[in-house]
């Protein structure tokens, strides 16, 4: 029995997830304690139970069945995404929710999971060769279709997560480096261009060096290079045509102190919350920044500053360690499972979780733009918690089936 359990369950990832979900509930309790939002706390407890139960169920879905239903699940979730655009109710300026009773469900969250499965399924097919343009286009299309639908909602944060999912999986599946540079370089250059011409030029020069190092054919290098420069220049033009709230967020990122009561306000207050927590924190329910609601809707995207303020460095660092543990274990799993499908699913899950963690914590600590991306396991949000625990369930499933081909 003991051996069977150890063989079937990756206890470390499971425990880390449970601990993080519990910390999340504690943090939400604190954040909503005096904000007249305790309903969120009770809802989250229900979601946590549903999510952890789902995780356990997912572990025992037969491996082959999972592979077989990957495409149908993807199809269904895309259908939902289209439907939500037509029927969904609007929350905070974007249409991304379905009402199911009092608990809303977000198709875009489900699609994250199904997209991983579908892409893994497609790329694990022996007949697929990523050096063929058609196959590459289909692989990218699997991701870009939901990205387009999500951008229509519009939900910039989730769309970015999908992009962050595509690149690592393609890399893992063996796509050419030149191709990946072609995908990444314009994106990075675009961000650099927002910071100003100097950084833009530095990025261009670095790209030039990189192209020399990988010794790609000069013609292709030239195409990549010109395209990147074009993107960088366009960014300024596009920036001017962005929605004002998006412009504000970008501005606030570039200079958080410039507009302390505008979009940069949250970042300043969250830095104050984290910094004032010190080493040991102010104590549970004692964080003034949290308890006095300096950060609006802190229980969603800015949940990380709650443990950081109330439990200090100890709490904040513990959470970082737990996240790192899950990610490292996930990568390790991806490189040890026998099935290519399982390996790609693991990398997909790790990429989605990692991009959420990095963008969110980077934002909360004032190192990244304020993009509406929640923190896995901790942030309030039923669909999101469900999709995260589902993804961990997939990791655990791959572990228990790691010897399968």
């Amino acid at each position, binding site marked *: 029995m003991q051996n069977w359990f150890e063989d079937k369950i990756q206890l470390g990832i499971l425990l880390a997830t449970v601990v993080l979900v519990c910390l999340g509930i504690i943090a939400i309790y604190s954040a909503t304690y005096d904000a007249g939002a305790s309903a969120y706390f009770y809802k989250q407890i229900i979601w946590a139970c549903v999510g952890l139960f789902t995780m356990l169920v997912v572990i025992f879905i037969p491996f082959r069945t999972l592979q077989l239903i990957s495409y149908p699940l993807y199809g269904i979730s895309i259908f939902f995404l289209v439907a939500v655009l037509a029927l969904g109710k609007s929350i905070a300026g974007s249409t991304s929710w379905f009402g199911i009773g009092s608990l809303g469900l977000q198709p875009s969250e489900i699609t994250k999971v199904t997209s991983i499965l579908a892409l893994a399924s497609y790329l694990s097919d022996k007949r697929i060769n990523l050096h063929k343009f058609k196959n590459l286009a289909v692989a990218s299309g699997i991701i870009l279709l939901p990205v387009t639908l999500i951008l229509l909602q519009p939900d910039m944060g989730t769309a970015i997560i999908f992009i962050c999912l595509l690149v690592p999986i393609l890399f893992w599946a063996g796509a050419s480096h030149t191709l990946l540079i072609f995908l990444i370089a314009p994106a990075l250059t675009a961000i650099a261009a927002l910071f100003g011409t100097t950084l833009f030029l530095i990025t261009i020069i670095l790209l030039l060096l990189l192209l020399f190092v990988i010794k790609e054919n000069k013609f292709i290098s030239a195409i990549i290079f010109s395209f990147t420069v074009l993107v960088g220049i366009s960014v300024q033009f596009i920036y001017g045509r962005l929605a004002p709230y998006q412009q504000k967020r970008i501005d606030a990122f570039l200079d958080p102190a410039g507009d302390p009561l505008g979009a940069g306000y949250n970042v300043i207050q969250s830095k104050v919350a984290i*910094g004032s927590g010190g080493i040991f924190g102010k104590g549970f329910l004692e964080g003034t920044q949290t308890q006095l609601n300096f950060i609006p809707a802190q229980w969603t995207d800015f949940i990380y500053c709650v443990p950081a303020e109330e439990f*200090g460095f100890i709490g904040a660092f513990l959470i970082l360690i737990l996240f*790192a543990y899950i990610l490292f274990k996930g*990568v390790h799993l991806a490189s040890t499972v026998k099935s290519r499908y399982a390996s790609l699913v693991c990398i997909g899950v790790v990429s989605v979780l990692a991009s959420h963690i990095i963008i969110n914590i980077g934002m909360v600590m004032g190192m990244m733009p304020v993009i509406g991306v929640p923190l896995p396991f901790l942030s309030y949000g039923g669909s999101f918690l469900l999709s995260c625990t589902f993804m961990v369930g997939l990791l655990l499933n791959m572990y228990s089936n790691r010897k399968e081909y």
Partner: protein
Amino acid sequence: MNDNSINQYGKNIFYVIFTVLFLIFAARLIQLQFLFQEEYGVISKENSIRTVSIMPIRGYIYDRNGVLVVDNRPSYSISVTPAEFDIKNIEFLSSILFLDKQEILDRIARGKKYNRFAPTRVKRDVDFQTLAFVEEYAERLPGVAYQIESKRYYPTSAKAAHLFGYTKEISDRQLIEKGSYYKQGDIIGATGVEGGYENFLRGEKGYQLITVDAKGKIVGHFNDGKNDIPLVEGNELELTIDAGVQALAESLLTGKRGAVVAIDPSDGGIIALVSKPDFDLDWFSGVTPTEIWKQLNTDDARPLYNRATLTSYPPGSTFKMLLAAAALDKGIINENWRINCTGSFKLGNKVFKDLHVHGSTNVVEAIQRSCNVFFYQLMLKTGLETWTYYGKEFGFGSPTGIDIMEENSGLLPSVEYYDSRYGKNKWTQGYLVSLGIGQGELGVSPLQLAGYAMVLANEGKYYQPRVVSNIKNKENNNVLKITSKMRELKLAKSTWQLIREGLYRAVNVPGGTGGAAKVPGIAVAGKTGTAQNPHGKDHAWFVGFAPYENPKIAICVLVENSGYGGVFAAPIAGLCIEKYIYGEIIRNKISQQPIITDLKDIKD
């Protein structure tokens, strides 16, 4: 696994990327929570804890009989917290408060300089309608609130504008001068008792530490109020004034320019101090409209000017006792020294006039009948140096040192004064003659003359005049008694008796000039004076005390530009004495009137 080499390589790439990112995050955590912890800790405290000062109630003021003369009433102020105020609402706020937009903005800007999280007062003492508007639109006007404050209220008919003084909002200059206790918008005593006893009356502000949420809404007391600093209420003052006498003197001077100063000769306490025309302290208790300020400052009757302590007029005949005291004390004359008054006095080719022909006159009669010729001759006999010396002894030429007000030293000329003004040996005896009857280059204030009356009443004892007798600490009920410094002018008993007899006779014996000061049943002693005024009608003076044997009140009355002291000043002094000694006016109006009119022909 199909392609192991790629995955091994890829795995390492992932490991490196994750390791670097998590190290960066850990470093950032250390930076924020270890290195900047203190800095962010302070910000978070300031974020959530605000200090609210609680204004103590300004001390109540009572008169010598325990009558409340300066009270407090609630008043509502509208304040704006700069950090919370939405500047878009400025037009709306301006229309509610009937206050100029720029004035509100200026006040907010001033408040911001000090603390943008603290409410700054934009309008004091608003009416209920404005208050109701602000309440009603509270939701639309974030950062706008009202505060209950107190304003001064004067319950008795003693208005004592110059004596009580007024309070006003502290100026920027005072903020720098007065140190850290005061904050912008605080009320500070400006003049009179309010100004002089500011440190006692104001109390000490209390401070409450309150926790607020991100919107600045109060969510509770910090640490259950354990760190709060309680306020200390303002001390209560008991004044030496008698509100009844003060009110009477004010009403008697209504429509005139002049002053009344009455002193308790037993301790130097001011019984009444009136300067007219005056102003209404109620104008200053709330907001003082600029028009009123302008009017007060441009009025040529100068209502803000305290005539009781700041004027410097020649004292006229009231000064004759000074010369008599000097001559008697120096042995220059005695009670038997007589002159023959022919109605005028000739020095060289200049003629100094008297109003009557008094005939053979000694010092008592000269005081009683105010014989000028007697004092012309006596002045020449006594000389300037002696006269100046005794003048100083009586307190002229220097401030009295009264506890609350600005005062004028006056002018007591001396040999040095004339030398520097006209040059050595360039001035003659003729310059001195008129000093003998209190005219010429000479200036005294009603307060100085009242002090002089006190010395005459006390046969030499002079108490420094003051207004406050007790300061009561409201916290522990300790009472601080204020007593006056005393100095004594030591003259022979007989000298005092001669002068006092002259003063008694001036009021009570036919032929005296001060009969109008007579009060039934009280022996009043006093001397009239009429100061020549080159700019208009003469100034009427009266100095005196009562009762004669055991003086309880010494008084000086000045009525500017009226005429003879015996006609215009003496009756006022009599009525004040009557009020003070009896506690009421026992003569009815009909019997008062003839006193004033019948004495019209009595000459000074």
